[in-house]
């Protein structure tokens, strides 16, 4: 098998394919194809179970071919009580398989560490035995203003042998609630899937419904939507650099960035009234336009935001005591990043050139050359520095968009489609949120309602990497490593 004859349905990002055109095979064959695909450099964007019309379970795999700007979809009928594990060979599949096992009662045969993803269990943590080994348990309620999760460290003195992260505390049933939709509440589930990535998730949701109802946003709406997505990136990247600074005890940048982050959130509010972009992105358009006066105001605020952020952030790179703490902390090699299936700035910090805006562009991103910002150190410094590169790039990109906004309406056909969505169809939408690839997949039933709605937040790909990068580190480096990823608990737990 080579890249030209992958026996799966080819798709483009933001596209739909009838279910009949998605080849169905045995679960053994699907596992084989996925493994071969990964061997050729493809990666898993989503791998999940779905209940078929007759009540049986089907497995769906969505693979991304970043070099060729293409997606692949395949499915398998799950027969019996299990299916062969891909994670045996490719760790990037491990959480997906655990999720399938939890949701559909199917056992991935040969899975190296099969346990629930979101259902809480009292024990079952990996333990290192030995007289001088001790265990540190943290959470679910943490010291700061952050979401809940449980962390279990196996330590030898200060040194971490192993960290296991148990999540699920934020599980509020998002995917389940979307079944039967779209309805009036569906967009709000997307907006709150991970609240700090509202635009990325809302955009993905709307692209799904647009693909299933043959609609699209106008060029103007796409451009303003991209501005909102980049503002989301700016706010979070600036905030995270401040948080990283705070965790190494360097207070100037921590204090400055805390405020500057707010300035970027307020730019989103300038667009739509809400600091997180709630209510901006609609199916087939946007709720608010960027009029001329507002555009001028945005550019002005962008200038001052850039000035302040540059001064605050450059201070990090110029301060040796900061650099000494960032360098070589929580390192993930390029190979490990690829094996773990990392996405977003975390992947790029390990040298992987992976960015949906460049690899699988949709909307206005198709018309632009978005350079992929990479760094090769794979440590906290890398993850911080990539953010800085992206901050500069996003600001430049927003400026470019604002001055060359396409004309036209922003909202051609709002609201739900009157005739419903295409029946028995699969649609995929990927967007590069600030944490990385936000993936939504929908499958419709014979009536055009969602029979399965799968959301893969970038955090789902990246949580295992945080645990992995703590190996052989000091336990006191955990907060710093954690901030360098800043993963979403609610996006993972859904």
């Amino acid at each position, binding site marked *: 098998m080579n890249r030209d004859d992958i026996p799966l349905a080819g798709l483009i990002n933001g596209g739909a394919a009838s279910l009949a055109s998605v080849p169905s095979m045995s679960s053994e064959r699907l596992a084989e194809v996925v493994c071969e695909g990964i061997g050729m450099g493809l990666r898993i964007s989503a791998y999940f179970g779905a209940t078929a019309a007759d009540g049986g379970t089907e497995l769906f795999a969505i693979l991304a071919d970043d070099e060729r700007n293409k997606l692949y979809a395949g499915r398998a009928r799950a027969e019996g009580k299990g299916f062969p594990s891909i994670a045996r060979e490719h760790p990037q599949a491990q959480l997906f398989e655990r999720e399938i096992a939890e949701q559909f009662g199917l056992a991935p045969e040969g899975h190296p560490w099969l346990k629930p993803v*979101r259902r*809480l269990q009292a024990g079952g943590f990996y333990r290192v035995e030995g007289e001088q080994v001790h265990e540190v348990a943290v959470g*679910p*309620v943490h*010291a*700061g*203003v*952050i*979401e*809940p999760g449980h962390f279990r460290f196996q330590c030898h003195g200060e040194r971490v042998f192993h960290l296991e992260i148990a999540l*699920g*505390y*934020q*599980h*509020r*049933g998002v995917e*389940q*609630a979307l079944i039967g939709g779209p309805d*009036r*509440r569906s*967009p*709000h*589930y997307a907006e*709150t*899937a*991970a*609240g*700090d990535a*509202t635009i990325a998730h809302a955009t993905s949701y709307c692209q799904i419904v647009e693909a299933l109802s043959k609609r699209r946003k106008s060029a103007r709406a796409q451009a303003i939507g991209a501005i909102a997505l980049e503002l989301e990136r700016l706010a979070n990247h600036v905030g995270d650099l401040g948080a990283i600074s705070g965790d190494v005890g360097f207070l*100037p940048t921590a*204090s*400055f960035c*805390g*405020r500057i*982050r*707010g300035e970027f*959130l*307020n730019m989103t*509010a*300038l*667009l*739509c*009234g*809400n*600091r*997180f972009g*709630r*209510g901006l992105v609609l199916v087939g358009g946007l709720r*608010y336009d960027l009029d001329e006066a507002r555009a001028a105001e945005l550019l002005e605020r962008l200038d001052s935001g850039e000035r*302040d952020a540059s*001064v*605050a952030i450059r*201070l990090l790179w*110029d*301060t040796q005591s900061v650099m000494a703490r960032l360098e070589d902390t929580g390192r993930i090699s390029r190979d490990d990043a690829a094996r773990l299936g990392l996405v977003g700035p975390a992947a790029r910090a390990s040298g992987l050139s992976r960015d949906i805006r460049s690899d699988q562009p949709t909307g206005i991103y198709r018309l632009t050359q978005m350079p992929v910002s990479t760094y090769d150190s794979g440590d906290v410094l890398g993850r911080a520095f990539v953010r800085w590169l992206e901050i500069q790039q996003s600001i430049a990109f927003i400026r470019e968009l604002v001055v060359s906004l396409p004309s036209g309406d922003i909202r051609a056909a709002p609201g739900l489609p009157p005739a419903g969505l295409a029946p028995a169809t699969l649609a995929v939408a990927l967007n590069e949120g600030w944490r990385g690839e936000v993936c939504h997949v929908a499958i419709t039933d014979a009536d055009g309602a969602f029979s399965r709605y799968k959301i893969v937040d970038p955090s789902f790909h990246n949580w295992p990497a945080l645990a992995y990068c703590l190996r052989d580190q000091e336990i006191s480096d955990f907060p710093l490593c954690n901030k360098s990823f800043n993963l*979403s*608990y*609610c*996006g993972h*737990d859904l």
Partner: protein
Amino acid sequence: MLKAILSRIQQGYRTMRFPAGPPPALSDRFRGLPEIEASACPDDCRACLEACPTGAISRDADLRIGSGSAEAGLRIDLGRCLFCVDCEEACPRGAIAFTKDYRLAVRDRAALSIGQSKRELELARVLDRRLRRLFGRSLKLRVVSAGGCGACEADVNVLNTLAWDLGRFGIQYVASPRHADGLLVTGPVTKNMELALAKTYAAVPEPKIVIAVGSCAISGGPYIGSPEANGGASSLLPVDLFIPGCPPNPLTILDGLLRLTGRIKEKAARA
């Protein structure tokens, strides 16, 4: 070192004067307290009820609009409201409008249900004498996210930045419930967080207060009816302050906290 000092000068003094001075400017598209225009509503229209994603709008069937009673007809439950303006857009007569009024925090859950009359939203009263004596100048809160999407958490946290500087009011988020005077809860309280929230609450010494921030924590928000979640903090704990929004603007949160501790007293008229 020199660079740090220079950058400090460049960044300037950024803490707002509010509440002594004016509040920070909000976006002209900001969606605050909604207003209902009674006279515009025909009896048989249900457009807003059908558009509302969380069932926040209700209609008293027995009390017909136009019957003269100011309390009749439409009511919006701000505890459920996502401030998404789906209702405003669905209304063919412009009977619902979201104003720029950011003051939304109340002490009683029932006060969040607002009708068509122009009476004031009953904004949060100050704590009673004993609690105010204890907490008025020093309120330590333990924040518990229990199914929140991260947006409420972010705008609770932002009050700690130098622009807002929550510490100047003696209010602080603390690392342990044992050091706290109360809880600030976000999220609908997922089933998986029920026990952790109960334990955290139990660990806070008496007397203690509970603050629910965001529509999830007040009513369940978009997750009302989810089998995986409860209906917010008040379904499990006695709540002393409700701050609506999805998420509430930091100004709305600060306004609520300051009213509770008696630092803002005026009863402002509805905008």
